[in-house]
């Protein structure tokens, strides 16, 4: 922590990297005046595992499995965004059925992630019975995921040019049965989260992110939509089969008629998105054409083609938490020349600062959780200098940058 001088009236409260309220390692330093938060500092980097670096030493198929382990909760959108980037470079045509299957998996992941988040949010305000209720519902989603992909968490269903498992006709009844279960229980969840007095007291008017701040800080996903910004990659730049499906931006004014940008609005957006996802899966099951599920089933042949490809591509996808971008550069080599991941939490960390400023200490967990942060997605850089130093301030960074320029000019 930085040893800056403090005035008499404020004091510093360090939280993390290991703290029971945090599910993942991240360190905060709060400047507190009585019960009010004056300033926040966030230091990241505890979950850096050098995924991108390792990726540049593996072939694209191996990277799919590595990308899956960037984050256990977004274990579908990362490999899929990577696959989109590679397809973009190599001009691989994905069969239409696969596009629909990809939508179904993406929406299942969204349901799972949002329900998980709802449980965590309830836990953060001390409403543990709701945590158990939502996680019971989540087990049903996981059952369906396991039925469709074979795994609960890391699904391993992504393949460059398609997916690895089909939904056959005899599987459809079980899927619809599960969807009906979600629909019945959705009403229950909606009632608890939106009508309950405890939730309203703790979430209305707390952690406000204005539309201007959301735009300036480039927030993404449900966090920005709750502030009234209509931004959704699925609609702005349709990928997979989203162009054929009927849906619209989810903003809190659909339900309440006004946008406040507080925690309550973020709950509304996520809940409505769960409902939207259920409807999207139903639409997909109806519209899905027959056909292949992968363009090139032989992996060795696919790898041989990718070895001859040169170029750069971008994979953009609306993950449950927001927009995820993968940049890949192939260089006629077995492994990619460059692979860069930008996870949605990266954008959603800075909005914490305006959200938390002026709030009470007890509101930290629910406000921080309201953006659905995911550290294992985000930590992309670590500075290792004789195994000790991890932070650099602006002057040092500037100095390093200047030195590098000079070095390059020599």
């Amino acid at each position: 922590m930085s040893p800056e001088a403090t005035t008499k009236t404020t004091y510093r409260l360090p939280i993390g990297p290991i703290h029971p309220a945090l599910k993942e390692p991240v360190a905060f330093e709060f400047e507190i005046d009585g019960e009010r938060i004056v300033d926040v500092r966030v230091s990241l980097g505890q979950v850096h595992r050098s995924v991108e670096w390792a990726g540049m030493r593996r072939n694209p198929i191996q990277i799919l499995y590595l990308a899956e382990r960037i984050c256990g909760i977004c274990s579908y959108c990362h490999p899929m965004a990577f696959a989109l980037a590679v397809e973009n470079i190599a001009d691989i045509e994905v069969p239409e059925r696969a596009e629909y299957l990809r939508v179904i998996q993406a929406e299942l992941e969204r349901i799972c992630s949002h329900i998980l988040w709802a449980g965590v949010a309830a836990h953060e305000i001390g409403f543990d019975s709701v945590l158990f209720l939502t996680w019971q519902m989540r087990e049903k989603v996981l059952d369906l995921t396991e039925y469709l992909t074979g795994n609960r968490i890391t699904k391993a269903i992504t393949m460059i040019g398609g997916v690895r498992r089909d939904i056959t006709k005899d599987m459809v009844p079980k899927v619809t049965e599960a969807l009906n279960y979600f629909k019945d229980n959705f009403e229950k969840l909606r009632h608890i989260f939106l009508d309950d007095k405890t939730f309203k007291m703790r979430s209305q008017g707390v952690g406000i992110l204005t539309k201007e701040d959301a735009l300036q800080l480039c927030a993404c996903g449900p966090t920005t939509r709750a502030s009234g910004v209509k931004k959704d990659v699925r609609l702005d730049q349709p990928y997979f089969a989203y162009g054929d499906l009927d849906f619209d931006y989810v903003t809190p004014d659909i339900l309440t008629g006004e946008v406040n940008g507080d925690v309550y609005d973020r709950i509304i957006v996520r809940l409505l998105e769960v409902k939207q996802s259920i409807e999207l899966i139903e639409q997909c099951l109806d519209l899905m054409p027959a056909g292949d599920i992968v363009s090139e089933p032989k992996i060795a042949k696919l790898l041989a083609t990718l070895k001859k490809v040169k170029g750069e591509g971008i994979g953009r996808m609306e993950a449950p938490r927001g927009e995820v971008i993968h940049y890949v550069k192939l260089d006629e080599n077995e492994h990619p020349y460059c692979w860069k991941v930008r996870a949605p939490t990266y954008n959603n960390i800075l909005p914490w600062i305006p959200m938390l400023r002026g709030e009470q200490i007890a509101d930290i967990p629910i406000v921080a959780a309201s953006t659905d942060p995911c550290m294992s997605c985000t930590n992309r850089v670590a500075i290792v200098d004789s195994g000790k130093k991890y932070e650099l301030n602006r002057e040092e960074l500037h100095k390093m940058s200047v030195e590098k320029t000079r070095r390059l000019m020599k």
Partner: protein
Amino acid sequence: MTKGLSKSFKKALWVYHCNSGSCNGCDIEIIAALCPRYDVERFGIKLVGSPRHADALLITGPVTRQMEDKVKRVFEQMPDPKAVICVGNCGNTGDVFYESYNLVGPIDNIIPVDVHVIGCPPRPEAIIMAVAKAWTKLETLEAKK
């Protein structure tokens, strides 16, 4: 599976969960084990907020450089007798991150591990079984006294 475990437990087992840089996969499976479907709280297994209250340590993740000293401190803060359970492939072997420059794991290199749980991520059943095994260790230690 749990040879040596008496029919009724002498005391409830309190567990502390520490994330040393994992991908969240194992962590959500640990929480899933605590939730209604698997409900380990009916055996008296409970997640606690401080390592000073815990009998067993559930540790996930491959231990990044930044977390090394923190993991050691958590281990040292736990009262004896204690058991350490390493959940997930990356803590046991490094898994897909094995060649990474920012890892000091496997966890074996840092603190002594009693039970290894394999899987990426392991199913809640496997985690519960590991906790039961750690319990056996603690009860055997108790019996020797």
